[in-house]
Structure formats: C-alpha cells, structure tokens
C-alpha cells in the first residue's frame, strides 16, 4: 500500500515532501533576492530619474541627472580609471595567475606550502591590503626609503602621490591580492587535464612549452572565463581597496565609479546623481558580462 493511497484524497505527506516542501525551503532566499537585488535596482533606477538631493524624492524629472553626470569631469576620470585599472588588473591578474599555476604544476617540492602562501592574500580584506600597500609605497616609509637607506639615493618611487601614476599603485595592490586566487583556479584546471593527453603529445614530439600553449591552455577556456568574470566584477565593485590605499586621491586621481557613487550619493547629498552613476555601473557590468554569458550558453547548447 502506498503513501498516496493511504492519505488520499486529503492531506498526503509524501506529496507535501515532494512538491511543497522544496518551494517552502527556497522561498526565503527567493524573497531576499527579489527584495535585496531587484527591488533596490528598481528603486535606484527610479531615483536616478528624480531630483533627489539629500533625501529621496519621487517626482519624475527625466534625464537631468544623467545629463549632469555626463558633463562631470570627475565622472569621466573615474570611468577612465576604471578602464585602466580594470584592463591592467584583469590582464595581469590572469597572466600572473596562469604563469604561477603552470610553474606550480611542474610537480615541485613544497607545492602545498607555496600554494598556501600565494593564496593567503585572498584571506585578507581589501582594507588591510590597501593599508599595507599604502605604507609599502609611501616614499617616506616604504620601498623608496628602503632603497635610499641602502644607498640607492637616486631612486624615485613616488607613484602613490603622483596623480598620473597613482592608479597603477591600485593595480599593483589589487593584483597582489587576487592573483593567488586566480592561480588556484588555473591550477585546479591544469590538474583536471588528463595525464595521458600530455603523454600523447610527448609521443607526438611536442616540447613542454608547445604542449602548454597548443593543448593545455586552450583547453582551459572555461577556467579563463570564470577567472575573467571574477576579476571583472572585483574591478567594477572595487571600493575599499582604493579607499584604504589612496582615498581616491591625490585629488580625485584614483577615483573609481564606485567611489564617485558613494561620495555623491551618501556624503555630498546628491542622491539622484549617485543613483544615475550606479545605473551606469550596472550597464557597464552588463555590457562586459552579457556577451560572454551569451556566447558560452550558445556554445553549450550547440556543443
């Protein structure tokens, strides 16, 4: 006798467990998602079309905030910084992570220890990273002073206080923190490559560099994609790192859109402008991520 026939036609425990329970369990998460993400996206979008200043106002005002945003020098500096920072951070993050992973993959001794050391920066918060690098890069305290003390008095390494170079210090600190994690991703990918593929390539006469560049690395495509997505979103939402390292300065030389948004939205009483900049960030992320997701999904369906 089955549970269904026992309970029919009224309440049935197995039916409850099969159909209603999963929905019930999922519901809070879905609700939190809906409110936490999509409702607030909607609210921000609405605010960006109003004249909100210190407090939200809800009268429609058209595109005034966007027009102001696009006329704002500081916004364009922030966007330019994001392009420089994002581009270099992602490129070198991937490159250094991949190279470290390939080197670690050579079955060297002490691999476990090295892997842990490389991964440690990821365990720190960006605030700690920013503060530490602020000291390291400070001309009066860190690398420059050390070199001067060693007798290399001609060395100048003042990027952090030079408006033209300050953004590169953010890149350095960001890469220092993230490349270990990228390495771990790639290393997992490399370890997943069937050993006999490498043996087959050896028998085909390929040298080790050729095996990596022609076979192994190209087959890590999905890992590249994941690493790219992770680095890209770290780049776009970077905030704490810059705040701790340079505070957006000197001047607003290292402003990023997230800092622009925070300062205008929450400290300068320009909620509408902040909302408009937040929407632009959302579109930036979407513009980067959508084509990738789309092409990957299409590949999967075709493949």
């Amino acid at each position, binding site marked *: 006798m089955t549970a269904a026939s026992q309970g029919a036609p009224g309440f049935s425990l197995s039916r409850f467990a099969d159909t209603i329970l999963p929905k019930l369990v999922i519901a809070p998460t879905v609700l939190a998602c809906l409110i936490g993400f999509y409702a607030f996206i909607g609210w921000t979008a609405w605010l960006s079309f109003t004249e909100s200043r210190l407090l939200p106002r809800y009268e429609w005002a058209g595109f005034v905030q966007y027009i102001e945003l696009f006329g704002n020098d500081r916004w364009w500096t922030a966007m330019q910084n994001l392009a420089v920072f994002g581009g270099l951070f992602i490129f070198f993050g991937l490159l250094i992570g991949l190279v470290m992973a390939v080197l670690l993959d050579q079955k060297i001794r002490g691999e476990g220890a090295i892997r842990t050391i490389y991964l440690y920066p990821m365990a720190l918060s960006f605030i700690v990273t920013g503060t530490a690098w602020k000291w390291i890069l400070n001309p009066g305290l860190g690398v420059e002073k050390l070199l001067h003390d060693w007798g290399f008095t001609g060395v100048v390494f003042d990027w952090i206080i030079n408006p033209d170079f300050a953004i590169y210090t953010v890149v350095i600190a960001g890469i220092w923190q993230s490349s270990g994690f990228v390495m771990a991703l790639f290393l997992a990918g490399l370890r997943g490559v069937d050993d006999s593929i490498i043996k087959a390539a050896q028998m*085909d006469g390929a040298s080790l560099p050729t095996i990596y560049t022609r076979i192994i690395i190209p087959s890590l495509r999905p890992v590249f994609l994941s690493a790219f997505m992770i680095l890209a979103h770290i780049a776009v939402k970077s905030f704490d790192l810059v705040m701790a390292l340079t505070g957006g300065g000197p001047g607003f030389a290292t402003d990023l859109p997230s800092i622009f948004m925070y300062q205008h939205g929450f400290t300068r009483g320009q909620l509408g402008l902040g909302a408009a900049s937040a929407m632009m960030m959302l579109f930036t992320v979407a513009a980067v991520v959508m084509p990738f997701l789309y092409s990957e999904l299409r590949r999967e369906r075709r493949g």
Partner: protein
Amino acid sequence: MGALSIRNVKKSYGDTHILKGIDLEIDKGQFLILVGPSGCGKSTLLNMIAGLDDISSGEIAIADRVVNKLSPKDRDIAMVFQSYALYPNMSVKKNIAFGLEIRKVPKAEQEEIIARVAKTLQIEHLLDRKPSQLSGGQRQRVAMGRALARNPTLFLFDEPLSNLDAKLRVEMRTEIKLLHQRLGTTIVYVTHDQIEAMTLGDRIAVMKDGEVKQFGSPQEIYDTPANLYVAGFIGSPAMNFIPVQLGEEGGHAVVVLDNGSTPQSVRLGPISEAQRAFVGKQVILGVRPEQLTDPESAHSDRTNLQSLQATVAITEPTGPDTLVTVTLNGVKTVARCHPRAAGHPGQAVTLVLDPTKALLFDPASEKRLA
C-alpha cells in the same frame, strides 16, 4: 631481426619493486599481448617501452637499437591510450595532424596522410568534429588514426577497448586484427581481458606482480600453461583444479576422483619423469571444462577416454552448451555438456575426461609437472 627486445628490465619506486626483471623478444610484424590482473605492471612496462617512464635497470631495444636514453619522440613509436587522450581543443583533423605538424611534414603531404588514414578507419565524415562530439567508438578510431598517421615501427596500445561496451569491443577487436594483418606492423598491446589476449595475439606474456609468468603463443599458453596462475587466468570458464593423490599403473599416471559416494580411478597419459617423483603425493589435477563432457559430445576419435559418474549440483545454460557443476574430491568442478545431456540438479550423470589433455601441478611450487 628483433623488432622489440626487453632484457632483464626492472622498475622500482624507492623500495617497491614494480617490475622484477622482464625478458621478452618479438620479431617484426608480431602482435605481442601483455596480459595480467590490475596493478601487475603492464602499463608501467608499456610506458617504459614508450619512454614515458625511465628504466631502473636493464635494456630495451626497438629494431635492434637500444632506446634506454632516447626521448619518446625519437623512438619511432606511436601509442593509443585507454582514455584515448585526444586533444580536446582540436578537431579530429588537427588531432591527427598535430604530430605531423610538430615533425614538420609538408602541408600537402599532411593532407595526403590524413586522407589515407581517415579512409582506412572510415572517419572521413568526422574530420571537422571536436572529440567531445564523438562517441566512444569514434574516439577510439581517431586515437588509432593519430597513431597510424605517424607510420611508426612499433605501435603501443594500452587497454584501448576497455572503455567500450561489449558489442563494440568485439567489433573493434576484429578491426584491430584486420588492420594488423593488412599493415603488418609490430604491435604491443596491453589488456586484462584474456579473451582479447587469445584472439589478438601472436605472442602472449602473462604477467603477475611484476613478473612474466609465461611467454608463448596463445595455443601454448592455453594447452600447456607453465603454472597454476596462467592455467587459471587463461580460459573461460576457468580450468578446474582438483586435489588428487598421484599413482602409477603400467606406465600411466593414475588419480582417484571421488564423487561423494564412490571413488573412481582415472587413468591419465603416460607418466613423465617429473610426475614420477610425485607418485604417492598430493598433486593438483587441472582439467578444462570442455575436456570434461558428456559421452555423446566427446570426440569419438579419442581413444581411452575415461568415464566417471557424478551428481549434478547446478546447471548453467549458455546456449550452445550447458555448464554442469559436479563435486569431485570435494571441489566444485565444471563440465561443458550438450544441453540435451546436461541433466538436472540431483541427477547422476556420466562424464568423460580426455586424459591426454589433463594437466598435473605441484601444489607447493605451483608449476606444471611436465
């Protein structure tokens, strides 16, 4: 002369000795099978021939050239792996061409070779696909194509069929055999499937625990296994091993088989010197199921077939024959009978044994008493 010579080859990792002195030699065009249970060192030996593992001691020569120090690409060999090992990011065509490209074969010649190989293996329609878009059997063909394209002096196969389903495995087995007959290349082929070993090989090396237990032609290994291990490993259903006391009568070996109620004396072939030393002692009688059958199925041209009575315990029909299990000297013994003569459990049957094919083994050393 020798296409492949393996002389006293050993392999150890630290204190664990994986291969304990292997000696094998085959001629050009022969098909050598390395067969044995999992972990006996077959792949290790193959990898050493390929140059993927180094040799702890001993010597390997391919086409009379010692290759111990040569890298895999200079040994003029090609290998097909168990997992196919196709390059996942390349099309089938690129997979086949890769080795040629590395060896700087001119483009036009590459095309020619690809076309020839694709035709041989009937994979012309798959050339533009990626490995992930192929079935297991198709991947297997591509892996073979990649090996064929190089036209090496020696082919190595490491359990190439073990990932295929039973039916496809039989098909591919036939195909590999045909390919070998057509191309006449020398092949070393690793398997743990004794049927594959028997059907494909010219020469079989039965391995266990890093040693070659016997090296010979399939028929030699089947008819005159050197020891209990080889006797039990080759043949399906496996050979019956019955403990008996050896006697001698008029120049013939005699054993007594007890079916539980009556001891019956069975006269085997003429006794040999080695066997005579065991008269009066316990030995092991080895009888293959097909040499123990019902009187009707027994070859009538055989003289002095020995008949004995037994009680059927289980019957297992296989279609053409029925396997009948009886108890002799306290051990379960399988006889291969005609379905009509198989009887049913509990019934008494008469079986005949071919005395010339029966083997005797020393239970202590496990060697056959020749």
